[in-house]
């Protein structure tokens, strides 16, 4: 059981408002991802929930009880740190057992819980090793094991995959998602990587400068971003923003079109453009083009397209996929 509710949570460092006031509901068993550019306050928000930072103002309710002034251990949460923060002088077994030992559990209970956690995480063969003798992925699993055994109300992950190489990151991403399906415990996951956010989350919270920009399911954010920031942040490559005459035609300040929502033709279309760079990935092709009178744009076409530098092409946006924004960057209803 772990429903978390933030009410007007505020954090200031000196005169700096890091988090001006956040309201958020996290349901039991949900996988919530905090995403945003670095310095947006997502890690601070997580640390506030964990109790590693004191809130300046506001309430943090876990299962209905305000824990804003409780010690971290009393909140019943577990955290996985970016640096793993394993205890280097302890064996893997002792690392995982430490929290239970501090809670005064008996030797038998500790043994049983550590063994079962090790089994879930494929660490049984490594229990007698020290963290120094493990690979990055294994250390990550030990850190997760340490979190699991305490049977927390919620798991907090602070950019847990950013120290791993790309291939391992994809693996661990799947493992963590699988773990969530198995345990069905609330998880809060902080990342700056929108791909991780899109693939793992039940609910994404997009943050900028300590403010919640939008909360929603991954596809909701992709299809209906409420403002320009979310539109630009979610989706890769980035959405193209076009102003000027073209936007006037759609009766707004700016329009946004995702790179994948263009039809590419060499004969005719709405926007004429010149290819600057073509990145051929096999399954898809990224075209970095210079649109006549509109500036640089990115286009994502499926499959192999025999286009290269200086080639003239014509782009036609899918009409129902065009996002419209007003002068303040807020989204307008689709035309």
């Amino acid at each position, binding site marked *: 059981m772990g429903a978390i509710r933030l009410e007007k949570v505020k954090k200031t460092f000196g005169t700096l408002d890091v988090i001006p006031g956040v309201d958020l509901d996290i349901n039991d068993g949900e996988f919530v991802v905090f995403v945003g550019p670095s310095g947006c306050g997502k890690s601070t928000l997580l640390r506030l929930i964990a109790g590693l930072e004191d809130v300046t103002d506001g309430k943090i309710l876990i299962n209905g009880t305000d824990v804003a002034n409780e010690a*971290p*251990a009393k909140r019943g949460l577990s*955290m996985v740190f970016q640096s793993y*923060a394993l205890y280097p002088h302890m064996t893997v077994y002792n690392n995982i057992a430490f*929290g239970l030992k*501090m809670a005064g559990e008996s030797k038998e209970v500790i043994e049983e819980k550590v063994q079962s956690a090790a089994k879930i995480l494929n660490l049984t063969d490594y229990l007698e090793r020290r963290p120094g003798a493990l690979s990055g992925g294994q250390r990550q699993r030990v850190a997760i094991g340490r979190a699991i055994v305490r049977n927390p109300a919620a798991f907090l992950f602070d950019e847990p995959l950013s120290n791993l190489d790309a291939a391992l990151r994809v693996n661990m991403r799947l493992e963590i998602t699988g773990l969530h399906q198995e345990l069905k415990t609330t998880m809060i996951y902080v990342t700056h990587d929108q791909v991780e956010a899109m693939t793992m989350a039940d609910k994404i919270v997009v943050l900028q400068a300590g403010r919640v920009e939008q909360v929603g399911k991954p596809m909701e954010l992709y299809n209906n971003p409420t403002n320009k920031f979310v539109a630009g942040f979610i989706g890769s490559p980035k959405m193209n923003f076009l102003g000027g005459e073209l936007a006037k035609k759609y009766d707004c300040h700016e329009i946004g079109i995702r790179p994948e929502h263009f039809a590419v033709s060499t004969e005719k279309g709405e926007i004429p453009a010149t290819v600057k760079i073509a990145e051929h990935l096999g399954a898809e092709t990224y075209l970095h083009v210079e649109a006549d009178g509109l500036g640089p744009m990115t286009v994502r076409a499926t499959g192999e397209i025999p286009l290269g530098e200086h080639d003239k092409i014509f782009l036609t946006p899918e009409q129902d996929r065009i996002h419209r924004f007003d002068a303040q960057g807020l989204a307008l209803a689709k035309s």
Partner: protein
Amino acid sequence: MSTRASTLTGRIMSAPSIIVLFLWMAVPLGMTIYFSFLRYNLLSPGTEEWIGTLNYEFFLTDPAFFASLTNTLLLVGSVLVITVVGGILLGLMLDQPIFGRGVLRLLVIAPFFIMPTVNALVWKNLLMDPVSGMFAWIASLFGLPAIDWFTNAPLTSIIIMVSWQWLPFAVLILLTALQSLDRDQKEAAQMDGAGPVAIFFYITLPHLSRAITVVVLIETIFLLTVFAEIFVTTGGGPGLATTNIAFLVYTQALLQFDVGGASAGGIVAVILANIVAIFLIRLIGKNLDK
């Protein structure tokens, strides 16, 4: 530095300094060993003759030897305990964000820059003097009789002075070690429900083990040869109460002019230091391999 040519060049280049250093050590050592087998007293020059191990027999059966051996071990042991424990506590304090931390750190480090003779004089004349010393004045405020430190507690006085001198070194090393402790580890322990005491014993202390090893090893080397503090304050007395091995060798050589006996004492001191070193490295040196 992996090809054969570069290894050879390296050897040739470093050879001069290694040879000089080796001679610097080997010649005095060889001469000391040679002298230790001679009857060699500066008061009767020209009568040097080979007497075998007689000097060693005299030195090792001298009651002063055992007294000074005990004093040496007591001195080294006590100062080590005081500086390591005190160093950890002060290090923990100076690691906290307290007001005036910069000035405080400077003050704590300062004693290390004072030469041992001056240190001893300050303690002897300004602090521990039973008539005009500050401790006597403090005692008088409470209506207590003044303690005559160097008469009633001579070894303790020396231990206090030497500890004061070496505490900054321990603080310096341990503080830097404390600052290198990953903050995440402490926070992870906090999440695991460890209180400040548990964090200290399970996280901080193991993290400090290497630094403590370094402090113990280096301090032992220097503490085995404490001399200035004893020379300036008690002169080894009263009786033999503050004579350590280094001071005993000095009295043999320069007060009794017995070069042969002093050389034998010196060799014994070298052997003792090596025994201590072997024990220390066996005991805690493996900490350094990690």
